[in-house]
């Protein structure tokens, strides 16, 4: 475990990050001096990259074999800030290297390849790469890689700092650690993502410790083996940080260390099995705002958390209660897209519930998206609302409103898609899904920045989707919440979910008649059980 002589984290948000490297402090020259390890078996590319990185004023170490790179990293844990690695290497698969680095050293890793196939890029995402560069790499692409380092530090710092913060206050009380990923979705408790629990746990423990900063634990191979042994002994389902910690019996290791490592490990396993057991991980950010409102759609709470624009709230409530039936058009202000989206998040859940219940109701999006709602539709809504109980969120779009509904649909699809995202090969679409619509999905400063640089959309089966732009901001919304998650795993994992929209989107066509949860959303989100 690193003692405090390792990197010290100061405010990472600005360029005043101080990088300690063997005693050299390079402050305020950042990102100059960034220590990059570049791994590529192609000597031509390696040489070019080295030159480019040097031109960016980075401190470059090059390496043509993955094994060598790993041992370099192991010997000198704090010697590097970021790793750039090729995907196809003879001695070790680039993704394997990525995993190792993620597990053992937790450094940001950028993958690169001449291969721009979406599957490969997706693999990068799921394996936790913080970026993916397509060869030939241009120097401009390298100029900004420092952002990944800062981002990661920032996220880690934030983790350490969370103790009794406002965010925590909104969250539900700490849940039993025993809740597994897969079961948490069933518990109808969206927030029960492991991450959240970890945060809460960490916070609890934080109260006990007086230090804000936790020294970084280095997960060496031996330590990791011990960890894995402990996990296997307990059984992956029952492996909780506390017990793992006890079994491992490593002095100086804290429960939080184990918890965050466990989370990564679980993601890793899930990736291996290709099945996402539960998307709640991804939902994490979505969940946060909605904690308390999960079951019944509590518009009030939503509004309170700032998620629901007041106007929309009023409108929804009115619509829900059928009070506005008299009006032929709901005066929905055109809420700014971002706003809609923040609003959307909670809706995601609701949307699903809606699907359940409202099969042939015409639903309309009442939340700030200007709709020309006909009285008939209102009535439909009303009807819907009644049948749904408190769900008055229109979920699926009626034909005439398809364009507006699309984004909602897409959003809704997202969380659900997440459940499947790992399975679905179309997951690779994630970054691409929105691109045809002209907006790079991750354009808004998401925590993950898997910038594929190819806007090749695929599989976007719902051509009628215009409001991709909305979706992208929507996507961004949850992303913002990813900061709590360790490093890359969260955001990276969530993006794929979005891509799943594509296949799910197809069900748009069915939407008018039947909003079927069966389209695939349902299984992942058992929230419906609670709602219905």
């Amino acid at each position, binding site marked *: 475990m690193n003692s405090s002589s390792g990197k010290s984290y100061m405010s990472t948000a600005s360029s005043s990050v101080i990088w300690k490297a063997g005693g050299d402090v390079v402050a305020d020259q950042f990102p100059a001096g960034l220590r990059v390890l570049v791994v590529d*078996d*192609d*000597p*031509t*590319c390696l*040489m*070019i990259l080295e*030159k*480019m990185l040097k*031109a960016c004023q980075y401190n470059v170490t090059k390496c043509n074999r993955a094994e060598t790179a790993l041992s370099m990293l192991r010997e000198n844990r704090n010697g590097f800030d970021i790793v750039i690695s*090729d995907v*196809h290497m003879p001695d070790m698969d680039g993704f394997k290297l990525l995993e190792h680095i993620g597990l053992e050293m937790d450094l940001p890793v950028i993958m690169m*390849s*001449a*291969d721009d196939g979406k599957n490969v890029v997706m693999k990068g995402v799921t394996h936790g790469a913080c970026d993916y560069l397509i*060869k*030939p*790499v*241009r*120097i401009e692409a390298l100029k900004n890689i420092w952002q990944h380092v800062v981002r990661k530090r920032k996220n880690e710092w934030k983790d350490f700092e969370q103790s009794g913060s406002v965010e925590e206050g909104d969250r539900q009380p700490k849940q039993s650690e025993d809740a597994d990923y897969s079961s948490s979705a069933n518990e109808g408790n969206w927030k029960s993502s492991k991450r959240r629990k970890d945060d809460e746990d960490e916070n609890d423990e934080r109260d006990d410790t007086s230090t804000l900063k936790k020294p970084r634990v280095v997960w060496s191979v031996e330590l990791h083996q011990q960890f894995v042994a402990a996990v296997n002994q307990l059984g992956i389902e029952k492996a909780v940080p506390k017990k793992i910690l006890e079994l491992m019996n490593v002095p100086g290791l804290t429960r939080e260390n184990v918890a965050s490592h466990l989370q990564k490990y679980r993601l890793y396993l899930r990736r291996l099995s290709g099945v996402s057991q539960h998307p709640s991980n991804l939902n994490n950010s979505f969940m946060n705002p909605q904690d308390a409102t999960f079951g019944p759609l509590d518009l009030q709470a939503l509004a309170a958390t700032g998620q629901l624009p007041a106007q929309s709230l009023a409108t929804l409530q009115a619509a829900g209660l059928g009070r506005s039936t008299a009006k032929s058009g709901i005066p929905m202000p055109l809420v700014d897209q971002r706003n809609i989206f923040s609003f959307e998040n909670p809706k995601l859940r609701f949307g699903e519930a809606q699907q359940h219940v409202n099969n042939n109701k015409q639903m309309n999006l009442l939340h700030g998206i200007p709709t020309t709602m006909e009285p008939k539709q209102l009535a439909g809504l009303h009807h819907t609302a009644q049948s749904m109980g408190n769900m008055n969120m229109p979920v699926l779009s009626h034909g005439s409103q398809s364009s507006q509904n699309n984004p909602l649909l897409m959003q809704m699809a997202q969380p659900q898609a997440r459940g499947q995202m790992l399975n679905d090969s179309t997951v690779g679409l994630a970054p691409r899904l929105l691109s045809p619509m002209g907006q790079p999905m991750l354009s808004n400063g998401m925590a993950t920045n898997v910038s594929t640089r190819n806007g090749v959309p695929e599989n976007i089966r719902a051509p009628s989707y215009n409001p991709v732009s909305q979706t992208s901001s929507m996507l961004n919304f949850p992303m913002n919440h990813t900061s709590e998650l360790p490093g890359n795993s969260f955001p990276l994992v969530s993006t794929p979910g979005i891509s799943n929209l594509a296949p799910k989107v197809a069900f748009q066509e069915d939407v008018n008649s039947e909003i079927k949860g069966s389209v695939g959303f349902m299984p992942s989100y058992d929230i419906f059980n609670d709602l219905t």
Partner: protein
Amino acid sequence: MEVGQMQRRLVDYTKSLFMEGFLDAQFLQLQQLQDESNPDFVVEVVSLFFDDSEKLLNDLTMALDQPNVDFKKVDAHVHQLKGSSSSIGAQRVKNACIAFRSFCEEQNIDATLRCLQQVKQEYYLVKNKLETMLRLEQQIVAAGGSIPMIELGF
């Protein structure tokens, strides 16, 4: 030939390489990376590319010469060549590699053999061109002149 003339010749020659698609913008990036601290950068990288490519082409020839062709291996080599040629800016070689890869996927032995020929041809062409260009540059420098920076529309 005096320096000015040589420089003009170089500029024209280099431009033609871009126009004819032998080189693309990536090569410009390399040229821009060259500076006083590293005045032979382009020559070094290009030489590295030549050595590496020739090895790859040999490997490819051998791999395709087997009774049972291992297309995965072939694909891996082509992928590598694609990567390095694109990093250098050898556009036509890169394009030939792309075509090559698709035939590898189909496991089409005849087509891949043809592709190999194509790639080799493009490679030797660009090698020739680059060597000529670099020789011109050398002559200019030897005569005390400086290498003019090429500015292209793209």
